[in-house]
């Protein structure tokens, strides 16, 4: 049973205090999107074996949604961070690369991505 530290209140919470929310960093596709774009947003999920970004809510706590970077195979937690982040921040990427030096993000890293 996992332990994740809520980045909003610092509480080291166990899984029963949290609500899972599936894959993180999905980009909403609204009425202007094509069928393919919408299908991708609504249904296509990574189901990664290894590095994975996901949403959790500190439901039995401060109530905030946050994001976690986790390895689905080893269950190592690379870190948790604010839900108001378009991409995982640099410290998370660094923690992942400590373990997987060749790991490549699937977004374009920019200076702005470091902001938390």
């Amino acid at each position, binding site marked *: *049973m996992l332990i994740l530290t809520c980045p909003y209140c610092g509480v080291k919470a166990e899984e029963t205090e949290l*609500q899972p*929310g599936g894959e993180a960093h999905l980009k909403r596709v609204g*009425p202007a999107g094509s069928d393919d774009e919408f299908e991708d947003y*609504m249904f296509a999920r990574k189901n990664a074996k290894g590095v994975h970004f996901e949403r959790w809510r500190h439901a039995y706590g401060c109530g905030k*949604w946050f994001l976690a970077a986790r390895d689905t195979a080893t269950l*190592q937690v690379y870190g948790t961070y604010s*839900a108001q982040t378009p991409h995982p921040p640099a410290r998370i990427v660094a923690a992942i690369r400590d373990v997987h030096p060749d790991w490549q993000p699937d977004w374009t890293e920019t200076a702005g991505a470091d902001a938390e």
Partner: protein
Amino acid sequence: MSHTPPFRLARGGRLIDRAFQVPFRFDGRHLRGLQGDSLASALLANGQMLMGRSFKYHRPRGPIASGAEEPNALFGLGQGGRFEPNQRATTTALLPGMMLRSQNCWPSLDADIGAVNSWLSPIFPAGFYYKTFIHPRPFWKHVFEPIIRHSAGLGRAPTDPDPDRYEQAYAHVDTVVVGGGIAGLLAAQRAADQGGSVLVLEQTAIWGGRTPVDHPGGQARIDDLLADLRGRGNVTLRRNTMATGLYDHGYLLAREALADHDPNQGIPRQRLWRIRAGHVVTATGALERPLAFACNDVPGVMLASAVRDMIVDYGVAPGQRVVVVTNNDDAYRTALIAADAGLEVSVIDARRTADGDLPQAARARNIPVLMNTGIAKVKGGRHVEGVVLCDAEGEGKATGGIDCDVVAMSGGWSPVVHLWSHCGGKLTWDEPQAMFRPNPERPPLGADGQGNVSATGAANGDLRCAGDLERAEQPTMPVWCMPRNAPYKLRSKMWLDFQNDVKVSDVELAAREGYASVEHTKRYTTLGMATDQGKVSNINGLAVLSKALNQPIPQTGTTTFRPPYTPLTLATIAADARGEAFQPLRKTPMHDWHARNGASWEPVGHWRRPYCYPKGGEDRHAAVNREILAVRRGVGTLDASTLGKILVKGPDAGRFLDMMYTNMMSTLPVGKCRYGLMCSENGFLMDDGVVVRLTEDSWLCHTTTGGADRIHGHMEDWLQCEWWDWQVYTANLTEQYAQIAIAGPKAREVLERLPGSIDLSQDALPFMTWAEGDIAGIPARVYRISFSGELSYEIAVPTSRGLELWERLHEAGRDLGITPYGTEAMHVMRAEKGFIMIGDETDGTIIPQDLGLGWAISKKKTDYLGKRAQSRSHMKDRSRWQLVGLESLDGRVIPDGAYAVDEGVNPNGQRKTQGRVTSSYHSPTLDRPIAMALVRHGTERMGQVIEFPMPSGEVLKGRICDPVFYDKEGARLNG
């Protein structure tokens, strides 16, 4: 008689107190043991070696072990609700008055008719059931399965409720050491030196593990260690606590036995510990392996360590003439201890030489030691009478014999690697020691990606972990089959799994039949599937399989180790969650009033809502009808407190609600109410309710009873994760307010009888508006909304005043026949009006357009959750099933969920369908059945008749009609 008393030795027995006799009953016989005895030692002290029957062949069984690995000596213990099957005699302390019942035998342990299976064993090989019962097919269900089910299962489940209390507790510890033997205590000392908190768990009541038995001076060493640890502030020592399983991120479950020994002292019997460990040290020791020789299952053949435990711990001699058979030095300890106890001993050693300290000591004591010798066969049926000796490397030709009544066997030791393995720790094959032990390179990983378990002592393969107490030993020689070249006749009598009757020949047969995977072989032969889960049999079985497959043991690998380490009673897992504490029951402030007034309850989520209030001899149906008519003709009240109430406030609240709801909520004027629909991003209807504009920047959103927390979470999700720059705050105020619906043509009259500041007239408070003030001195909001179609007000007051208002309304309306109504009357009345119900008309695949609710979908909005999804081709497909009403042709109620069939059949040969009933009731208002249904092209098919075949073969017919059955023009809304 080969087996002769006295069984209790004149001296010795470190755990017993000879001053206190303990009476107990075994299958009705009155016996006596001593305080400190285990059940096994007490029975052995009474000369009772026969303690059970094997599962498949009903062979006689005696204990072979002295600990948790015991596969044979299992009993039903206790009576009534405290009866427990499959209790191990070796780990259960004897208590005064205990009642032991033998298992898996009939009519008695001594004369078991099932033992006939043993004579038939040649026709019951591995896979017998699979092969035999497969044809003819119908026989399985009607003949074979009932018979097998009757004879399957070991022990009988108790039928009475367990009268004892159980509990659970959480602990957070830096280092947990599992095992209170010398390795565990030393590890605890090392961990405590680091300064963190240390918790040591020992599964038995006794600290020290094997050390006090195996090493002269061992007890003193243990006592010193315990004294040191007890003097440290950061160490907790917990006995009687068995670590059952290790899970992700250092989550360790353990069971503490608190009152197993005294169930009547009023404290919980057992406690389930949920421990978060920074680091776990497994100091779980090792288990001795049996040797596979012919008839090694005859009662009296025991593990060498168990024989010496009986002598040292309990002063019990399992027999007077002991033959030790071994492939290692350690078993010589048993020979020495037995000789010290005055028993006749000889040693049979499969190795060519044995010159370690212990064998030398044995020879010095004039104990006969035969090298390069094995047992060809054990003599005796219900008890060991002797052994036939042979060349250990040969084919079993008799070279001599020894009369004896106990065989103490040792095939070496296997580290207990269960906890290490539960959460991903890998094993490595240690060839010199012939054992799997933890691979330190591949430990289980914690949240930080680092290993969070380490093994120590015998659990780590370090069998000689008692430091300077140890003596020089020579290596073990692997012996997987004794003698090495035994023919089939002997191999078919060599037991691997003693409880499930799996023999060397069975594993070999599985290999020949193509079961190359150890996991498949396990299931095919049932090797290791007994209550001991292979603790005794696993490694020997793997070795035999590897040999049969002609591959090295590590290539065969082990089966998966899964928790719990030893069986855990379900009551311990449930802990306090039983009876009233089984589940939280949510109660409205009027709950007790409903109960006093005879409410028949309906669970809605964790709430209990009155379904109806039967009076006198009324059944539920009659009560519902009465309640409906009372509302339609007069006035009734519904406890609507469970509805979700979410406050949404802020400069962007209107814009936010426009995204949440399909309707336009930003334009709702202050003072007005609007029925709103909420869809998931996938377009499907997920909740509905009345939205109230409270002020310029605040709205109150009502949700369904079950939806309150979910919808609040849904709103917060979008606010926090998508539109986090929007200025909106929400608050789930569901429990702050009690809410009462008062409905019926006389609703206003009743309400106006109470003093208050709110003008309730049609002009001042028209339909779909609200007002604030006080009613009967209680601060209240009144919403003029209706789910029944009648003149209706919903009144929200602070929860603490809810019951007061409810009672005031009932006082005020008594002469008008004011009637409390329940959820079913509400359901029927809304169906009479054609109003949908989330969960009845919707099932997660329904869009508002299916339900004729297109009017509630804003055409002006460029976006709302679900809008994009609803523009997909399948959502716009005109052949989607549409909501209609149904009139039953013959006056019978068409069952809820019934399917309307269409012409033709589908690829499975089933009738095609064209619709289904979503709600169906008898309407007391109209005195006829009414139903709502989703039907293909339904709204274009008014007047058509569709058919609903019933399981009975009958066909019910329904005519498609408008779903609004009552008061189509809505005149009754205004009273």
